[in-house]
């Protein structure tokens, strides 16, 4: 029943997201149905819930069935009009996938066994997610608690009893709780199992999107290897199969990475431009999804997007004017989408950090943090052997790591990792690393990109050595 509720609740946002992606593709559709569907779910949930947020805080539209249907309609109607008028005669997508060799029997057996093992692990975690009560602090204090309050009051309230004034948790964007409110509205009341089970959607989206992105470049076995590697990361599975928002952020980050990855060595200007348009919207939606999306990742993505545009210019797909237009487009999207959220925060005195004010963070060196980072990445059970492998490949295959298209996930990861490390080394956020509380969440945001780069580097090594 809870699973059905989640699936039913996904339909309107996924439909809006599908159409959003399709409209941004323009008259040269690029994505396969599966890619568009996954990107549609990721972007659609955020876009529709952000629309609901705007309706609630500006026009006091209540968070009931009619309010949500209004939010869906506001997006759906114009997107449908665009799709079936302006884009009515657009060509169908003809994605080119990498060839797949015929596998020997032992290869099929290995893939089958790993597939079954992956399904068992993920299935066990999903079963626990749907069948057990909420357990972790941030869900009890923040994501689910605010959702319950919003559902009960049918409005976005910054003061949640027993508090008498806004607290730190009110500074978090309300989009994840709003999606739970939507599901609760469909269910006729709070449904714990469905509210928690929703989070599995973002985890599955990461796996499927990774497969789709890899499949454009590598054969089926390699794409499946990427999915296996990502799904075997224990902490990513734990995060994805619990009601925390970090895999939600990871799915957004990876969605933008994927689009840029597909765009960077495009030879068709219109295709490249439609992908960068989508990336711009994705960056703006990330900025309103969670606080670090605005404070940390959006600026990095602006740089990476411009880098992508510059590389397209270097490859003669883009002209200089197109690079400038890319920058303007991303800036406009950030102003149009993230702007209202920033204004809302300012008007309500909400901080820009996660329950902490960024402006009050002091700078000083914390000498034990590097060791804590090493422990988290290499000595605990969080990421298996991903980081030793990634570091090894970066060292041995550094030229490939910094050439198109692997450059995109590599550069983004190094920038984001560097920025995170700076914050942990030099600010009071050091406690999050020393106590191993918040540190791994930031890494969870980045691991899909790391896995993409890792698989591409390994596969590229083989392809390079096969060439005469």
């Amino acid at each position, binding site marked *: 029943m809870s699973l059905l509720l989640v699936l039913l609740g996904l339909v309107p946002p996924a439909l809006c997201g599908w159409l959003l992606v399709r409209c941004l593709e323009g008259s040269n559709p690029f994505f396969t149905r599966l890619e568009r569907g996954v990107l549609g779910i990721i972007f659609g949930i955020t876009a529709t819930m952000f629309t609901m947020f705007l309706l609630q805080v500006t026009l006091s539209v209540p968070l009931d069935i009619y309010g949500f249907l209004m939010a869906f309609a506001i997006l759906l109607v114009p997107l449908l009009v665009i799709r079936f008028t302006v884009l009515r005669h657009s060509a169908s997508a003809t994605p080119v996938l990498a060839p797949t060799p015929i596998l020997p029997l032992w290869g099929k057996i290995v893939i089958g066994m790993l597939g079954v093992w992956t399904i068992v692990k993920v299935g066990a975690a999903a079963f626990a997610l749907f069948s057990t009560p909420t357990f972790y602090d941030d869900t009890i204090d923040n994501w689910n608690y605010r959702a319950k309050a919003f559902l009960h009051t049918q409005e976005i309230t910054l003061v949640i009893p027993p508090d008498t004034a806004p607290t730190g948790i009110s500074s978090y964007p309300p989009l994840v709780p709003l999606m739970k409110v939507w599901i609760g509205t469909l269910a006729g009341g709070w449904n714990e199992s469905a509210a928690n089970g929703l989070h599995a959607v973002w985890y599955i989206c990461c796996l499927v999107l990774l497969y789709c992105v890899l499949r454009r470049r590598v054969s089926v076995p390699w794409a499946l290897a990427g999915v296996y590697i990502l799904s*075997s990361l224990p902490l990513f599975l734990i995060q994805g199969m619990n009601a925390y928002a970090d895999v939600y952020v990871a799915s957004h980050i990876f969605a933008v990475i994927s689009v840029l990855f597909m765009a960077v060595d495009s030879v068709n200007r219109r295709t490249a431009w439609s992908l960068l348009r989508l990336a711009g919207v994705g960056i703006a939606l990330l900025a309103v999804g969670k606080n670090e999306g605005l404070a940390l990742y959006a600026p990095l993505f602006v740089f990476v997007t411009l880098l992508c545009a510059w590389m397209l210019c270097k490859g003669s797909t883009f002209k200089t004017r197109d690079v400038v237009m890319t920058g303007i487009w991303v800036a406009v999207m950030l102003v149009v989408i993230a702007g209202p959220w920033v204004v809302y925060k300012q008007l309500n005195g909400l901080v820009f950090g996660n329950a902490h004010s960024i402006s009050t963070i002091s700078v000083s060196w914390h000498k034990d943090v590097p060791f804590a980072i090493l422990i988290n990445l290499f000595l605990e*059970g969080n990421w298996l052997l991903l980081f030793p492998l990634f570091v090894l490949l970066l060292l041995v295959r550094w030229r490939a790591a910094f050439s198109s298209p692997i450059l995109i996930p590599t550069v983004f990861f190094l920038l984001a990792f560097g920025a995170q490390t700076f914050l942990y080394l030099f600010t009071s956020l050091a406690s999050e690393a020393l106590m*191993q509380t918040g540190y791994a969440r930031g890494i969870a945001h980045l691991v899909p990109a790391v896995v993409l780069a890792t698989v591409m580097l390994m596969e590229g*090594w083989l392809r390079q050595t096969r060439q005469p």
Partner: protein
Amino acid sequence: MSRLRTSLLAVAFALFAPVSAWAMQSATWDFTNAQVPGSWDVSSFEVLQPGQDGLHIRASAEGRLVRRFDPPFGVQVIEITTKSAQPASIDFVWRRRGAPPEQYYQFSIPIDEGVATAQLNMPDYHTWDARAADIGFVIPAGTDLYLQKITLKRWNIGEQLAEMWTSFWKFDRVQPYTINFLWGPVLTRTPVATHNLWNMAPPPRGWSVGRFLLPLIAAWALCIWAWWMLKPQSRGRRFFGFPYHAGVFFLGFAVLWLGFDLRMGLETISYAKTDYDTFISKPVGERTFRNAYTLHDVVEQSLPELRTSPQFVFLPPPNTPFRTLVRYLTYPILPASETDPIDRFDTWLVYERPDVTQGSGGQLLFRNQPLSRPGTILKSFGSGTFLFRIDQ
């Protein structure tokens, strides 16, 4: 050839040497039957008398028993068997070799009622010296017990390796920190350490498996690289499509990855299995959920009565996160805050508070002091856990 034969003979000797050379070593100091092994330096005790049941120690003031250690082997585990009429606590002390005479390290050992054995895994304490100069006890005032036996133990290399294999497969449980990080496999060298692995407050005492995996991977890569350098004629070969050496390296790496994945995957599955066994498959009233124990069941069964008013009094054990959890579970009905005057509220949910009882007059008592007006226990869920309503 003779060098090869010598090497083979050495290996055969090592493998087939007498079994006793491979057994766990132990030595026991038995204090029962009026024995006192060794010479002890003692401060004055009210009673210090060898007897049938062991060395009877009664301390009216803090006292010390210390002896020269001089063990026959490097000690890993010390077992202390006592007999006591009531729970107590004593300190185990030791002095490292070469340390000044009064420089002792110590930690507290809880003593259970009756005949009990405390097992101390000494490598847990980084100041422990396996051949310490002195060991002994500091006995607090008011302690009355019999010291029956002290057993010293050490496991040989093979047994320690076997224990490391056993501890590799011992899984953690879901804890509040599991969402933030996973310890992963932790290797221990004694059965006591393995038993305690996930039962004591973190961090776990042992070695992260990463300590071995990373050097192993580095050594493996180094060997492959050396092979590549020393055998250039093999460079053109292929191994499942990879360059031969890279292929061999990645095969080894994949084996390690799969082993690690199997270990962590089984741990993840064990989380779900434990939840199924303790919560999902049980009827309401018999469920426990992780470190919240029976709280979810108690709240679920109490909700109809709690909902009769917008707030209620919730009395959990001190220093527990249960108040926040109950606030979440009962929202929009809320537990009163700790600063609210509790006599305003009619409904009380008392959880795991054996120190809160109902007096003969019907009021709740805390350490025999009245806590509430007279009322009725609506539902009882076990010792110290009940739903209470003030009589109108």
